[in-house]
């Protein structure tokens, strides 16, 4: 299949490891990946913050960049983000329609009909659950709100994860609760957002997992920021120092990881990749906190 990748603005600029992993994964599965160069952003942040008029050129650009899928030039568009997929599917045509751009709204609808979140693409379109991945770590999964409730991906991401060789999946308590990100909510209502985040961070840390995964880098950025801060302030480490935070990895990164090309830290110079003295497993089963860096 020829699959166009919408890298998402956040994925392109801040978390290239996610779209990169999608390319590696899909090419490994024998598909051709296309990256339309005109793409930038789906417009979700603007729409959800109330700036529908400002969102119009952003959405038009996205629709223009991916319009060839509506003409059959590509078979599908894949997005490594539940919330961007949700915006493409449920908001873009509405905003264009309101702006009086009926024809473009119809194109947007046609593009959206062939646009899939990663787990939807793999399971529903490509019909694959075991992608041949290897990720020998203890992992917990956060089902992001928009994947869960706007798209209804259900347990697709979990089915994909369960098929990964070597993975030790730990159930996340209160998994379906929002992490408190909510786009500009995190800034406009920072205190409430932080209170929600604190609960999510506690839940993640209680699993004893070394890695937190999700289908959205926006939520992972939020929870990851909380995990890093929690670790920094020593609230989770017994000795209050030197314990690396639970790492955040996109679902695509786990699925792209294999024996031949295992997952590697995208920013090895950073704290999150710094090796601490001692060796041993990065994560321990049974809910206790990991104390040393993963040996790769």
């Amino acid at each position, binding site marked *: 299949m020829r699959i166009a990748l919408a890298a998402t*603005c956040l*994925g*392109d*600029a*801040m978390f*290239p*490891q996610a*779209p990169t992993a999608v*390319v590696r994964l899909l090419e490994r599965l024998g598909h*051709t990946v*296309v*990256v339309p*160069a*005109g*793409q*930038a952003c789906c417009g979700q942040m*603007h729409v*959800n*913050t109330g*700036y529908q*008029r*400002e*969102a119009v*050129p*952003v959405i038009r650009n996205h629709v*223009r960049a991916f319009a*060839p899928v509506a*003409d059959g*030039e590509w078979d599908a568009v894949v997005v490594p983000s539940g919330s961007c997929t949700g915006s493409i599917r449920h908001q873009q045509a509405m905003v264009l329609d309101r702006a009086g751009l009926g024809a473009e709204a119809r194109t947007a609808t046609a593009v959206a009909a062939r646009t899939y979140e990663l787990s939807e693409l793999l399971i529903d379109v490509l019909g694959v659950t075991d992608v041949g991945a290897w990720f020998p770590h203890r992992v917990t999964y956060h089902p992001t*709100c*928009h994947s869960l*409730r*706007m798209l209804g991906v259900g347990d697709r991401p979990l089915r994909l994860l369960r098929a990964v060789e070597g993975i030790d999946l730990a159930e996340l308590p209160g998994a379906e*609760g*929002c992490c408190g*990100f*909510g*786009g500009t*909510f*995190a*800034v406009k*209502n*920072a*205190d*409430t957002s932080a*209170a*929600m*985040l*604190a609960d999510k961070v506690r839940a993640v840390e209680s699993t004893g997992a070394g890695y937190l995964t999700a289908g959205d880098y926006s939520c992972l950025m939020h929870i*990851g*920021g*909380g995990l*890093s801060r929690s670790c*920094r302030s020593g609230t989770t480490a017994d000795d209050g120092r030197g314990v690396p935070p639970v790492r955040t990895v996109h679902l695509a990164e786990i699925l792209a990881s294999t024996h031949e090309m295992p997952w590697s830290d*995208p*920013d090895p110079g950073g*704290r*999150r*990749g*710094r090796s601490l003295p001692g060796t041993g497993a990065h994560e321990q089963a049974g809910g206790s906190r990991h104390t040393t860096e993963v040996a790769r």
Partner: protein
Amino acid sequence: MNARPARTSSSDAKAGNVTFLGMPTPADPLRWGPSFPDAARRELGNEQLRRNLGHATATIRAKRAAVVGEVPDWEALRDAGSALKTQVMDNLPELLQELERNVTARGGVVHWARDAAEANRIVADLVQAKGATEVVKVKSMATQEIGLNEALEEEGIHATETDLAELIVQLAGDMPSHILVPAIHRNRAEIRDIFTARMGDAPPDLSDVPRELAMAARAHLRRKFLSAKVAVSGANFGVAETGTLSVVESEGNGRMCLTLPETLITVMGIEKLIPRFQDLEVFLQLLPRSSTGERMNPYTSMWTGVTPGDGPQEFHLILLDNGRTRVLADEAGRSALHCIRCSACLNVCPVYERVGGHAYGSVYPGPIGAILTPQLTGEPSDLPYASTLCGACYEVCPVKIDIPSILVDLRAREVESGHAGKGWGAAMKAAATVMSDGARFRRAAGLGRAGRVLAGKDGTITRLPGPGAAWTDSRDLPRPPKQTFHGWWADHEKAAGTEAGSGTEPGTEAKPEPGTGTEEER
């Protein structure tokens, strides 16, 4: 939003020696207190409140999920409830007239009230015409919304709330913080203190055992039921076809109020209509399971006009607008009027669970309050932003109100009317310029690398300047990557050899880009 002055009700403050920290009765029940972010910060600081709320909402969430899960056709019921309410909104004038005709034909008197002041005036006049100075009340959101108790007090009429939780709120000189469980922010020790100090006839050795608290309230209320000549209620449903009104409650206090007094006055929002008696079948399944997590509602009272020799011999129905026709006129927001006040959306809302009802500055808190309050008042509000758009509310709503979508629409309205802040407007405009062009975006993303200097030596950004501090006050941020995805893709393509059509030279702005090549075709 500006802080609005609170009006102190007569039952507040000096009535006892103890002062109960609560929310003093405001001048406008739909607009009070500081802005949502400020009020939320205040409430978040109250550990006791967070514990009470966390416990209560978790319990009721689990109860609801269990009883909803056992109904095989729950989704079909939701569809039916939604369709019926849409039908009501599409035919509201005709259905209201049908209701008026049928209530009148059965001996009731129908009054129309444009706003809170008119409704309160009508009730006060009716009570005074009976020469009464006391009324008993059934728990009602409509009368909370119009501040009826305070308005009656000014006319020398004392209204007694007979729902247990409403009684607690009233005795404490407080405001409700939940649609169904107005005293959800109180625990039983606080309730014992409130009863002992304010109820007058509470046993001096009252403990905080729930049964004892309930018995004390019961004895107190029984005297009120037996002496009151006039009762005031709201209505869960008004059946246009028959003129039947219905109140759904759990304690039996409603049944007392609806049957014992000589005169019954019902204040009903005009959106509470349902077309036919048969339609109750749908709503009496949806409501109890969604609100209290019960399979069947304990006390469902229905009355049609006046029945000689049985129940109140005088019945007045006040049909209340108070902003509802404005909501109805709005195509995008009108489904907020479908609400049957079950409060399932409050119980699942992660924001409500943390901050509680008082932070919303309205008698309608939580997700439904965030869409209903600004629409009813028609005034600028920060409530549409009091949500992460997580969608849990929409998922549980028994009449399928798409609250997240309405929130997004109301945000657009705030922006359009210029109430969203100039800084945000400028930032969004600048972002839109960058994000509406692939080449411009890639240039900007490439520049993001400069942000790496903000990181400490461990590669993490812990402190951002200016508005970014709202993020880094409680979260870190990874430093931007050395190479953007598009940069990587260009290398990847080069390494793989150029394959026709797959995004040639994405990093080079000057060259034609296949992805944008469709422009000419369209």
